[in-house]
């Protein structure tokens, strides 16, 4: 398609463009509200990306501020913790991506299998609850669980554990809270997708003698696959963006845990808490975006090589 297009002459391309517009005007019209919305609230503000390379001076406009090159990025890379911070961020996110592609799917399939549909509704609804509890509140619930003196775990008769001073437990605790909070929410997507599957397919499979397990494998999972792949690709793009609320609030500011809880967003927050430099936080965000962008392009390329229909674009 593209080759043909580049081969045509300039004026032909132009008439082709108008023709295309005319042929697609209904689509274009339908996309217009969203297009304008994104233009206004996402693309116009993107001018702010250059803040990452500027020295903040509030008395000037963004364009008049002085260029400083990559100076705003230095605090990210010229610090002794950079390796720990990046390692934590990436490893946690990898675990989250894997968990995100399995647990919610399992929950959704499980729900769809339950014979009693009323109970399924109850579980479905209850599973959504944790999503509404803010991280600040969850951090206090965690205290109720892990507190040395009054915590539920330390009052179960076992040798008390000094949870908030022992880093080795925390990767598990944080992963648990992440899954617990987000999976019920994400399961809704897959549950809805299962509900959208044509039930005739199952009936046909049943007549062909496929058992429930087989039906899941040949019908349910393949129809969820595009959603799973898409969510995973998008999550790869956020591999350097840590869930600040989780990593900042739940460890309750316990410094002893920082080696396993310090992720990029927490690091940036701590580093900039006092000097409040929006140029440096822009730089941090820019770095996260660029890395994510490249990774998505690569992932998307690989996916396209394997199965073109599953690629994002």
């Amino acid at each position, binding site marked *: 398609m593209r080759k043909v297009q580049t081969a045509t002459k300039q004026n032909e391309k132009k008439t082709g463009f108008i023709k295309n517009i005319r042929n697609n005007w209904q689509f274009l019209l339908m996309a217009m509200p969203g297009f304008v919305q994104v233009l206004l609230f996402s693309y116009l503000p993107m*001018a702010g990306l250059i803040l990452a390379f500027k020295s903040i001076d*509030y008395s000037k406009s963004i364009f008049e501020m002085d260029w400083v090159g990559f100076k705003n990025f230095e605090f990210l890379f010229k610090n002794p913790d950079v390796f720990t911070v990046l390692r934590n961020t990436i490893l946690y996110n990898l675990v989250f991506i894997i968990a995100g592609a399995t647990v919610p799917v399992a929950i959704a399939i499980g729900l769809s299998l339950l014979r009693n549909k009323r109970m399924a509704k109850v579980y479905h609804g209850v599973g959504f609850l944790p999503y509404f509890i803010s991280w600040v509140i969850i951090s206090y619930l965690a205290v109720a669980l892990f507190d040395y003196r009054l915590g539920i775990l330390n009052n179960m008769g076992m040798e008390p554990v000094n949870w908030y001073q022992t880093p080795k437990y925390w990767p598990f605790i944080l992963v648990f809270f992440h899954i617990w909070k987000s999976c019920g929410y994400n399961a809704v997507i897959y549950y809805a997708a299962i509900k959208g599957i044509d039930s005739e397919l199952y009936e046909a499979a049943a007549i062909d003698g496929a058992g429930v397990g087989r039906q899941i494998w040949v019908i349910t999972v393949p129809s969820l696959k595009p959603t799973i792949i898409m969510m995973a690709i998008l999550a790869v793009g956020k591999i350097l963006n840590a869930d600040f609320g989780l990593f900042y609030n739940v460890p*309750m500011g316990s410094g002893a845990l920082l080696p396993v809880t310090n992720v990029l967003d927490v690091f940036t927050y701590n580093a900039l808490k006092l000097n409040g430099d929006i140029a440096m936080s822009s730089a941090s965000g820019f770095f996260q975006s660029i890395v994510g962008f490249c990774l998505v392009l690569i992932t998307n390329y690989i996916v396209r090589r394997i199965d073109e229909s599953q690629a994002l674009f």
Partner: protein
Amino acid sequence: MKRIFAMLMVCTLVIGLLGGCGDSGKTAGGKYEIDWYYVGEQFADEKAVEEAVNAYLEGKLDVTLNLHPLDWSGITEKINVMAGGGEKFDITYTSITNYNALASKNALMPLNDLLDKYGQGIKDALGEHFLEGSKLNGTNYALPVNKEHGHHYGILYQVDVAEKLGITEQIDNIKSLDDLDPILDIVKEKAPELVPFRSPKGCDDTYMLDFEHIAYPAAFYADSTDGKVVNYVDTPEFMEAAKKIHARFEKGYLLPGGTQTQATETFFAYSYLLKPGLDKEQSTKLDWKQVDLTPPRMQSSDTMGAMLAISKTSENPELVMQFLNMCYTDSNLLNLIVYGIEGKHYTKIDDNTIKLIENSGYGNVSMRWEFCDIFKQYLTEKDDPARNEQFAEYNKIMTPSNYLGFNPDISSLSTQVGACANVRAEFEQQIADGNSDAEELVTKYREKLKLAGAEDIVKEVQRQYDEWAKTNKK
């Protein structure tokens, strides 16, 4: 792809044109509207109070007031964005947390000329030293709220428990935290339901050394005059103090697992940042009594605890300064803003004491220290009637630090500052909790600070101090 980037360029240009032009300020009836941002609750009667203020200002000053209370974490973010977006606002609360950052990035109006012209009342109220402390490069960018001018450290203890155990006299007479051990032993034995002691981060033994913190971790020794900047974590005193905390933990006086989430009622006593009469204010549920341990000191940070700044985006700073001058001098106006309308939000007991009306829909009592001059505000019936005299006395006896007004600009070291801040986040709480071996912990703390570039900060602060001392020391 190319098209997207082309579009980005266009967007960039559009925003650039927008960024240039600011919003023109709203005026009500030809008067200038003053937008005042502060930390506080959103009260139902805010509008009514604003109207009362405007009525009071009628004929005195051609301005109207619009109050904008924000929450703690919100105010920094919103002020940053408004300053960046060139949005008009006039007065904002600021403190040591963001003052330096806002001022050095040109978000705040330099005030000295305005003060000379319209601010005589403010100058009189604050006195010479207090206004000196928050100068950056010799310029004031904010006005401190007139309240207690310094700080000291000490402990608070539960009166009832002490009386029951017969240790009141003993504890009232301690001279330092070192004298506390035998008392805590008694508490541990006879009141096992209580945790004997707590030293919260920021009020623990290492802070009681009262280093004058300039830019973490650069500091001066308390009361020193030699102008020598040190990394306070590297000092032998710091190690000593950290060991004392851990020793207390070993003896079972402290709570394992960190104390940051525990309510104060869990503890028999805790160390704290004090001012006169703090114990009375804390004693609504339990009776607390304070024992003062360090002498009161006025350091630069004390003068920047709560300040009012005028924004660069203000359209009429002269009028705003006149208005602030009125707030600092006219107690009727100030009390209207702080406590609301008499009869509706409070009733008068005598000339200077009021009783708040429960749930009246206005009353900034917990945040009144953000408003100009607490000596000109009413006292409530719960306040110590002698509070103002106590504070005045307190402000008189304390000696201003030798380095008052030295506030270096270390924005060129933002990398080191960021790295050190992360080290601080890792260790400071651990030191205060005292759970781990102090020797080992402090050694690790020092190593990491060194790697993070603490030395650069110390050197830069020293350099700037030497320069500052040349022009500012008499």
